[in-house]
């Protein structure tokens, strides 16, 4: 008997079938990956197994766990299975853990309600579990509230809560999507350890994760199972075209051409820029420190860093959206005054911005055509309305949206379409610099690829300079000429794309590259080269901010701040760049 046997599972909301006739089985001890884009029904399937679908979901088929039917089972039956036989790790531990209850109490109540332990014994088992998932200082985390933990520690606590009653089946639904890449690598290593004695069903959109951690995989497309088999076979020769497209769309660090450097006139120069924010309690948060960067016409510079690295603050300061603490911003050699409000209108049009959340950055009350038209209304007052309409239509056409989209509202667009509108709005003024702040982070792999191609095309037509902010080094490789790596507000490395990927000079850059999962079972199995998480920016470590996490750190790294200097053609801020071999 299989541990989990799904037969003809169909989930419907009204007329909308989100899972269709899904059948598969998982044997005890296996680790199986489920991959699919958003809307493929993978999370719905997980919720169905746990009996957590909302009340308006209609289900058909059968889901057997150890021979017990869970579909439409009573709450009593389900509660007998949950925690002790099956458990779920959710995507975002910030949302999934109760912010009002201490971590220890949240885990303890699972043991007490299932009569597995009580009193001191329960406390001891919780502490033991916190230790097992690699939480430092378990006694302290036991008493901590979720917001007092870092993102990675929160997900460890979430995993601890799923494992505390020793379930046979652990379902992890995008367990690392909300985490930084180096933390993701640590959590994946933890899951790797867990799967030795627990059956793991790992749901993700990231083929790299499946390649490294699952023996078998299922590919879902719009609620249907399109392919299943061993991970090695599927990656080697995908049978279904959707699988092939997914594998093709997965960004890779180790493959594909990189763009060569662009020489030319510098359109945007940042000189010794610092940005700080005043905290309410009187402290100040130093988001960016003494950073210099110049971007040439026709060039794409990627700004890479984990959350809190200051990458967004840097470009916001350049755009005049936050005040500069010190330093200068030059546009075509001319100094741009502080905040955008104080810049002449004509100057503002040359710097445009595309945000991460496409839906949130479009006014829900306006139709697509008006959204794209709005910048023209401000900057091209001389144009007649026919002329503007023509320009809007041409621009929408250029971003791949035909005439039928003009009258739509943002909520009638998919994520990719909404991002196309946002790009059209930014490009309609023919800016010289386009800043993309995590512009593809919220998009599915295939859509992401299209949007990146669109940005590449926009650059080919003219001398558009693109500053591309991202946390994902795999995305960077395909589109950028140069890469700036930031850590805690400072420059870590600034290098040509080619040299960065072939020969990273800074241990942090190397760690970021290592942390990206490779979508290839043969090449997978990357080791975690970085422990710990980014320290609080309010109290940065002395000397080199990276030294507590760096295995090459020596006394000088703890004592002295490394200044950016040229090593092998790249700019690197590391005392030991020449000595160490990465």
């Amino acid at each position: 008997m299989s541990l989990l046997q799904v037969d003809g599972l169909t989930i419907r909301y009204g007329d909308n079938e989100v899972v269709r006739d899904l059948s598969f089985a998982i044997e005890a001890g296996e680790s199986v990956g489920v991959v699919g884009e958003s809307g493929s029904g993978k999370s719905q399937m997980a919720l169905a197994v746990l009996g957590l679908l909302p009340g308006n979901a209609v289900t058909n088929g059968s889901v057997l766990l150890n021979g017990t039917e869970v579909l439409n089972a009573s709450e009593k039956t389900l509660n007998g299975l949950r925690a002790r036989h099956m458990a779920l790790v959710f995507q975002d531990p910030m949302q999934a853990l109760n912010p009002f209850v201490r971590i220890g109490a949240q885990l303890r109540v699972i043991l007490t309600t299932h009569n597995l332990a009580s009193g001191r014994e329960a406390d001891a088992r919780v502490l033991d579990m916190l230790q097992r998932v690699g939480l430092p200082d378990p006694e302290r985390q036991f008493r901590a509230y979720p917001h007092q933990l870092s993102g990675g520690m929160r997900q460890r606590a979430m995993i601890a809560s799923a494992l505390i009653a020793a379930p046979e089946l652990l379902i992890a639904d995008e367990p690392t999507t909300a985490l930084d890449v180096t933390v993701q690598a640590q959590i994946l290593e933890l899951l790797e350890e867990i799967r030795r004695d627990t059956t793991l069903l790992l749901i993700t959109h990231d083929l790299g994760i499946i390649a490294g951690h699952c023996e078998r995989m299922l590919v879902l497309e719009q609620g249907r199972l399109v392919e299943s088999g061993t991970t090695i076979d599927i990656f080697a020769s995908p049978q279904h075209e959707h699988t092939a497209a997914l594998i093709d769309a997965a960004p890779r660090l180790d493959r594909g051409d990189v763009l060569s450097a662009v020489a030319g006139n510098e359109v945007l120069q940042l000189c010794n820029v610092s940005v700080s924010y005043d905290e309410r309690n009187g402290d100040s948060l130093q988001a960016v420190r003494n950073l210099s960067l110049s971007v040439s016409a026709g060039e794409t510079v990627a700004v890479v860093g984990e959350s809190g690295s200051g990458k967004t603050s840097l470009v916001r300061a350049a755009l005049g959206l936050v005040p500069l603490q010190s330093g200068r911003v030059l546009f075509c050699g001319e100094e741009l005054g502080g905040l955008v409000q104080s810049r002449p209108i004509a100057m503002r049009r040359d710097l445009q911005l595309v945000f991460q959340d496409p839906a949130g950055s479009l006014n829900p009350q306006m139709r697509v055509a008006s959204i794209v038209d709005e910048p023209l209304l401000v900057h091209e007052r001389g144009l007649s309305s026919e002329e503007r309409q023509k320009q809007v239509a041409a621009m929408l056409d250029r971003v791949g949206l035909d005439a039928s989209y003009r009258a739509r509202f943002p909520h009638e667009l998919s994520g990719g379409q909404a991002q196309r509108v946002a790009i059209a709005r930014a490009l309609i003024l023919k800016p010289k610099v386009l800043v993309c702040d995590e512009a593809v982070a919220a998009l599915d792999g295939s859509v992401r690829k299209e949007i990146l191609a669109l940005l590449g095309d926009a650059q080919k037509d003219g001398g558009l300079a693109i500053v591309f902010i991202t946390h994902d080094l795999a995305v960077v490789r395909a589109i950028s000429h140069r890469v700036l790596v930031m850590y805690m507000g400072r420059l870590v490395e600034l290098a040509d794309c080619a040299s960065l990927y072939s020969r990273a000079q800074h241990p942090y850059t190397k760690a970021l590259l290592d942390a990206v999962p490779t979508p290839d079972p043969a090449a997978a199995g990357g080791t975690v080269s970085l422990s710990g998480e980014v320290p609080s920016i309010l109290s940065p470590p002395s000397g080199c901010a990276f030294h507590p996490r760096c295995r090459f750190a020596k006394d000088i790294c703890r004592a002295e701040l490394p200044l950016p200097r040229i090593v092998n053609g790249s700019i690197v801020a590391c005392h030991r760049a020449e000595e160490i071999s990465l």
Partner: protein
Amino acid sequence: MLRYTVLRVLGAIPTLLLVIVLAFLMVHAAPGGPFDDERVLPPEIEANIAKKYHLDEPLHRQFLRYLGGVVQGDLGPSYSYRDHTVSELIGGALPLSLHLGALAMLLSLIVGVTAGTAAALRKNTVLDRTVMALAMTGISIPVFVVAPVLVLVLAVYLQWLPAGWSGNAGGARYLLPVVSLALPQIAYIARLTRASMIDVLASDFIRTARAQGLGTIAIVRYHALKPAMLPVLSYMGPAVAAILTGSVVVEEIFGIPGLGQLFVRGALNRDYTLVLGIVIFYATLIILLNLLVDILYAVIDPRVRQR
């Protein structure tokens, strides 16, 4: 946290000062004085009395004199209950009113939160609709209607409970006044609890708790109750104010010698200092309770504490 508390207490001072100024002016703007009577006093005696209570001085001098007393905790002499200071009168009537108010508050919280939670858990069922309909009725009917109707039915027709504040009725005499005071608050709290409980039950961490196999009671007790109580806690300040206002009416109807009754008597007798004293006392009480609510907020929600 301490800094925050001190700042909040200091911030309350201007509010209190404003209340004193407004109350003082309004009392003095009312026509007639405390010693006007059908029996006209000889002018010399009237002047004597006015002199004794400093009523012959210009208004601003009277105010400053009064304020000086208030700062030292002296609310002045009562004009109608001679030989008593206002502070003494308030001190005498307070325990009974406090008793009634606290009981009403407790009853509102227990019944309101229970009913609201039950309605939220059985959303859109007969139970939910019944609770909400009753709550709507409770909010709509003012206390000066509820109290006499309760007396009429339970005390006069059915004769289960005493109608007034008779000494030999023991604890039973508390029942009708407390219920009259609590009913509108029960209704408000039930509605608030239902709404916030429904919100909380839809959050991701409740889904996690369900995934962990916790039953409904465990989920409410360990996960949902605390966050769902935040809006109810915010309402505690206004609720206390509403109960204070209600007690003015209820104490009069049931003949309870509490602060509310004293207030009404004071107003009828144009006892400036007594009315002023009680207004200032009420204002201070409400400000302090609101402050307490804010501090409790931080106790319940750990995320507020950090800021």
